[in-house]
């Protein structure tokens, strides 16, 4: 990795990583990548988020669904852990709570494959300060 050598460098870098992340997030190309984020802070892991993440990856492989699974920090819904955020191409992200292995299968078969909503969606109850 080359070091970031100046503020301009950093800005350019921001634009390029943003572009690649955006491609992942906003594209409405139908066969574009589905994104799954598992909340993996101590609170999530304590309720089994690690297993859920592993199971998600395994189940996606088994069902031959292309999706990018990543981890993230605490979303704040400790009462509903494990929580998982799913972004379908061209749609707003949705957070699902109380995720079990059975629920993972359902999420893949119903929501990811067919766009059918499932119970235990967690409403976003906050606004976030916007980046520049």
């Amino acid at each position, binding site marked *: 990795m080359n070091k970031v050598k100046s503020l301009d460098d950093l800005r350019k870098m921001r634009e390029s990583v943003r572009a690649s992340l955006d491609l992942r997030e906003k594209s409405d190309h139908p066969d574009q990548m589905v994104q799954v984020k598992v909340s993996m802070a101590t609170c999530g892991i304590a309720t089994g988020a690690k297993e859920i993440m592993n199971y998600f990856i395994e189940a996606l492989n088994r069902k031959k669904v292309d999706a990018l699974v990543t981890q993230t920090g605490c979303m704040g819904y400790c009462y509903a852990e494990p929580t998982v955020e799913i972004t379908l191409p061209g749609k707003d992200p949705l957070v699902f709570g109380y995720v079990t292995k059975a629920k993972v299968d359902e999420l893949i078969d119903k929501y990811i494959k067919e766009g059918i909503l499932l119970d235990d969606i967690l*409403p976003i109850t906050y606004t976030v300060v916007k980046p520049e």
Partner: protein
Amino acid sequence: MCCGTGCRASQSEQIIANLQEILLQKELQEEVQVVRTGCFGFCEKGPVIKIVPDNTFYTEVKPEDAELIVQEHLIKGRKVDRLLYLNPETQEHEPDSKHITFYKKQYRIALRNCGFINPENIDEYIARDGYLALGKAITEMTPEGVIQEITASGLRGRGGGGFPTGVKWNFTCKVEATQKYVVCNADEGDPGAFMDRSILEGDPHSVLEAMAINGYCTGASKGLIYIRAEYPLAIERLKIAIAQAEEYGLLGEHILGTDFSFDIELRYGAGAFVCGEETALIHSMEGLRGEATLKPPFPSERGYNGFPTNVNNVETYANIPVILLKGADWFQQIGTEKSKGTKVFALAGKVNNVGLIEVPMGTTLREVIFGIGGGIKDGKRFKAVQTGGPSGGCLTDKHLDRPIDYDNLIQAGSMMGSGGMIVMDEDDCMVAMAKFYLDFTVEESCGKCSPCRIGNKRLYEILDRITKGRGTLDDLDNLRNLGSVIKDTALCGLGQTSPNPVLSTLDNFMEEYEAHIIDHKCPAGQCKALLSYVIDPYKCTGCTLCARNCPANAITGERKIPHVIDTKLCIKCGVCMEKCRFGAITVQ
């Protein structure tokens, strides 16, 4: 359809059933899906329904409204005005949930990236303006300029004391020395608090970036993060973050081609509460006993190894990059007159939505507990909320509508502390609660000064006596006197605040203390020694089940004749009450 506990209690399931039935009748079940969601934090106005994709928000919906919603909204495309959220300020119905100011009740600044980015990937942080504030500071601003901006923003320390951050930075900056240090206090010792842990686990780079900015301002080239070894995941993510930042040249020598160099190391704490106090923390890092020392000298003058050291809390740091990018004026607008910005709270105890929340200063306790928190579990009655952990006090009904900020909480006899917020209901005994915290402080006192070492122990003993029904009315005066002497004479913040839980419960719940002392009763039914199990002779059928299960052989009686409990033998295990099939055994 919101199916949070609040809405469920007001018939959300019935509404779902009605909606489904009507959709079936109209053969719309393929086109319209009814889905249960978690709590919207809108419980006062429940049950609530949100219709997507048009973002209509219906409040106080009744089961019989289902038909109207399907007929009017879903079939004819006309919103049902009567059920739309009524904006309390404008008295107008809001057709679109995006305009409902309610959602501004939680505003995420410190938690801006938690749950959004992968904390182990620096690119995702950079995509959200990461390290841009550092870049801006070291290439376009003078250290004084940065400090001025932070001072003007009104940011105050989030570690408990609420000291103005810019002023502290200025102190450290002004001291002449060959070496200076920047320290991040990630000790987080309050029972039930996990704000700092969540920030470090979810967004470690924001803290690293802010520490480097602090280094630039104060003239320090070295940063140290003091973190408790009990936070392995946070430690691991910090290590990954530091390595990535070094690899990118955002930490290390000549950052972004400037003359500024800064690196960060971790130091581990063994989990002593007093080591969160800044002087004790510094001694612990030096390899000495974790004991507090008298201030002044403040760490800003003489800290780690005798050099000027700037200590700030994790959450304080997490605010810094945003302030520099958005400007002090923007930050100034959020919060109250003397407390700017937001505060993160770990909401715990008897509320429905236990979790991590961030609200602008000035939000009321009611909005936090009954709005975001979804109200009290199992429909019980709210009794008190403890803020500030073992250093704080408890607040009651009468404080619910007070805006939360540093000064208001102190005035009410509690404090902001680091942000723990424990909600208690009618089943919690306030005397036992005060005893719990005292037990904690006695355990955690470093023992250096006598008011805290001996005084707190005495406070604990008196409380213990009261919970066992052996207290006297004199004890109440003793608690008060001793408590205020400890506050005035203890050496460090631990002892100076440890009597707060006792003093504030004395102020707000005198009748509970009196009930323990005069009537030998615990109104909440929590203090075991004051409970007695009794069998109601009219309900007892003489089945002998309780007698056969009592581990202490305290129950006697013949078959088919009401049984009796010998209170002297009873160990109050509660087994008999659990076993009795006739509800004949009660606890008083």
